[in-house]
């Protein structure tokens, strides 16, 4: 890839990035603008605490229901790694186990 193509910004990608940035700014400003003088109910607090995890686990849910035994086994190993290790070792274990197990099965 030359520098020319590397510096390209696709209009649809730019639109998506700006839309995301606006959505993110909205979440940052809302607490201050709307809820600043009010107390957030404990219930709302619990819901907001749980929400990011619900989204993250939904995004990776297909990996939990894969039809390939090698992928399921690699996923199980990656979960074990994530419980014990920091990011980089976990990523390496995930990639290596998926690569090796797919080659075997």
């Amino acid at each position, binding site marked *: 890839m030359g520098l020319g193509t590397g510096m390209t910004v696709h209009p649809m990608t730019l639109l998506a990035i700006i839309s995301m940035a606006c959505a993110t700014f909205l979440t940052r400003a809302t607490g201050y603008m709307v809820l600043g003088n009010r107390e957030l109910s404990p219930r709302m607090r619990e819901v907001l*605490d749980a929400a990011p995890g619900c989204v993250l686990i939904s995004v990776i849910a297909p990996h939990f229901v894969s039809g390939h035994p090698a992928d399921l086994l690699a996923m199980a190993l990656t979960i074990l790694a994530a419980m014990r290790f920091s990011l980089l070792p976990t990523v390496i274990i995930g990639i290596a186990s998926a690569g090796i197990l797919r080659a075997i099965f």
Partner: protein
Amino acid sequence: MIHKSPDNAIPTVGRSSDALRGLRNAVPIMIGFVPFALVLGAQASAKGFTLAEVPLLTGLNFAGGSEFAAIGLWTSPPHLLLLVGVTLLVNSRHVLMGAALAPYLRRFSRHRALVMLAFMCDETWALALADAKKRKTVGIEPALSLGYYAGVSAGLYLTWVIFTGLGAALGPILGDVTRYGFDMAFPAVFLVLLRGMWAGFRRSRPWLVSLVVAGLTYLLIPGAWYVPAGALSGIVSAWVWARA
């Protein structure tokens, strides 16, 4: 990501020394950002992001969780509504954080407060709030130091944007080497993020609901609907369980 502040000194008053103090406190977090940033940049380039588009995303959005989610769901052309919806959901915790910071922001102009909030990430928020509480107990005014906040923000922001860009530049080289298991990097990153959010089984039950609903939706309905279906059912279950 939870990081312990290494600096236990009494918070100072001057703005420039406050900024240096903030930058110093941010260093361990900056180091922690580097692997995440490299992985994000490499994955974005694998999804077709150019070298210019990656720092544009991470510089304008500056919220890692939503950026990982967006890259994971990225299609060409991108599905705007899905990306915005997922971004709102992943970053919904900012509402809570902004509300907690609001009492300390009242003494700044609205414009300045909004600029500060534009740079608020989990770590900046945690450090700034801890510092403000410390200064309040020793009676330093204002409790929330603009210099300290700016120092922490500058360190974290620049680290994130520069190293995601570097990851994008190195991505094509790394891509071929790791192609066969490379897709497993995503769940690996997310699982580590989830472990960081883990607050006991009871609090995490909505995650299980999300996982089951998203998994079933993925198997039964084509497209990326499994994300909003899983996320929303988990959030509804959190709402219901919170009453009990």
